[in-house]
């Protein structure tokens, strides 16, 4: 899939080669620096994520990709820099508050609720959309019941979309790895996020599972118009999926642009492509 060449730093909407219109920036990271004691995990990185695009963050092991995702998601708080979300500077929030702002994520090592069924896991993704009080829930009163039914219907739509009907009632701990990854994607999707973060969605998968997952990511982006930021190791996968790519190495940004631009970037080739792929 070849994407139209476009300048790396865009302020506004643009149109991709395959005709999708990408909206303005939904999230802007400005000069983010994150330190753990003396170790600098992220060093003055800036980039933005536009509405409706698939944005990839790549880099070798230890480049700081996961830290960056954890900053966006609120698990880590950067010492320096600004995060602008939906046009407003975001104050340091707790991860659960950020979830309520419409940022959902998956984890590299799968963080599902293993004792719960697929359906229940996906229903937890709906929590940010449910707000009846404790008392009416306990008594299973009008509003609580209606809310449960509506959200259940939404969860079922996600299950249909991800083609996991057959495992609806299976505790996810018993599922094979590839399916667990898919359920985790489903849980994040159930939140109807404004920004979906995927931490190595293809890690540890075989070729067939990778193809399935790529297809789902593209479908999610196309059908729901979901903005996606993903971290990935597998270069070939990223180049096919992403609209734009940020390349990190040793906590610094060394490249940013469309897959084609990044592929030709000498610094990127030296740091990453040149070593492991050619």
């Amino acid at each position: 899939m070849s994407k139209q060449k476009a300048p790396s730093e865009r302020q506004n909407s643009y149109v991709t080669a395959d005709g999708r219109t990408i909206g303005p920036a939904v999230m802007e990271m400005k000069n983010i620096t994150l330190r753990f004691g003396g170790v600098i995990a992220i060093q003055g990185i800036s980039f933005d994520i536009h509405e409706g695009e698939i944005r990839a963050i790549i880099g070798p092991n230890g480049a700081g990709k996961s830290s960056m995702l954890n900053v966006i998601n609120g698990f880590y708080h950067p010492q320096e820099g600004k995060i602008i979300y939906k046009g407003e500077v975001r104050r340091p929030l707790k991860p659960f508050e950020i979830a309520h702002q419409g940022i959902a994520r998956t984890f590299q090592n799968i963080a599902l609720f293993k004792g719960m069924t697929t359906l229940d896991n996906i229903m937890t993704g709906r929590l940010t959309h449910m707000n009846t009080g404790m008392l009416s829930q306990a008594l299973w009163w009008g509003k609580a019941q209606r809310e449960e039914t509506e959200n259940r219907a939404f969860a079922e739509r996600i299950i249909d979309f991800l083609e996991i009907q057959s495992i609806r009632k299976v505790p996810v701990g018993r599922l094979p790895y590839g399916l667990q990854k898919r359920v985790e994607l489903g849980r994040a999707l159930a939140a109807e996020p404004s920004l979906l973060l995927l931490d190595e969605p293809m890690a540890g998968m075989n070729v067939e599972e990778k193809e399935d997952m790529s297809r789902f990511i593209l479908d999610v982006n196309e059908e729901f118009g979901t903005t996606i930021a993903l971290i990935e190791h597998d270069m070939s996968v990223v180049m096919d999926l992403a609209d734009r790519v940020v390349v990190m190495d040793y906590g610094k940004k060394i490249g940013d642009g469309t897959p084609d631009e990044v592929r030709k970037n000498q610094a990127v080739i030296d740091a990453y492509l040149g070593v492991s792929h050619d």
Partner: protein
Amino acid sequence: MPAEFYYGVEVFLNGLMAGVMYSLVALGFVLIFKASGIFNYAQGVMALFAAMTLVGFQNGQIPFAHLINAALGTEVHHFGWTLPAFVAIIMTLGVMLIFAFLVEKFVLKHLVNQEPIILFMATIGLAYFMEGFGDLMWNSDVKRLDVGIPKGGNIWVEESTAFLGGEDFYGFYLDSLDISAALIAAVLVGALVAFSQYTKTGRALRAVADDHQAALSVGISLRTIWVIVWAIAGFVALIAGIMWGSKSGVQFSLSLIALKALPVLILGGFTSIPGAIIGGFIIGVGEKMFEFLIGVPFLGGATENWFAYVLAMVFLVFRPQGLFGEKIIERV
């Protein structure tokens, strides 16, 4: 049928009833353990504290009377009124809710991401603090708890089963209090299971029990959930306190019932609500039947004191996760 057979059945039924009483205490442990991985050593003391508070409210005791008298040189002990049981129960529930809130604010909040053993130690401290605090607030006398639950042999059960035996059989003897406890436990467990399976908060509780990070990422506030869990555990402690307090009076030894809950938990599994009930039944029936069939005839009796612990030990060797607990699988 020989009279011994009916006597055996009666022992069995009484074992079931005793088991329910153990289960009531075990439930509180399971709730907290499931949601936060904490083994709450203070559960027994919570039951004692709840029972003391209930009696105190009911009898119109002035809280901290000793302290007030010592400080102001007065001689006050009672407000001079008595409250209906219903009102006192509601007020005690309120106190347990405040307690849950304070535990989160002053203990758990500061121990996020600590090892389970650290949290366990914190609950030991909490247990001793509450024990002293309870004594200070309501004094340490042995108190009688009566919220109107019938006590003594149940006439109806006795009369309606009398026809089973011959001349010398007068029907089964079951304590009304135990029967009430069984009914209350059944309703309580039904409600808890329904709550955790079919409501949003219940689902959030289970989610937190499973994975803290993932729970945060779907927008669950751990602190809110902990307050809710401790409040529910306080509620269960209140019910256990009422039942045990009605049975044997409100005094320090009430907090030791927690020890009997341990074997129940080992049998049922620390993470299973139905397990706590079945475990209670097995311990209750097991110790009564063992005493009846083997203890008294062959071992000189008094086996009830240790039977439960030996059974738990056997379970620990052969099935450490308990009957209903999640299987412990270590992936290499």
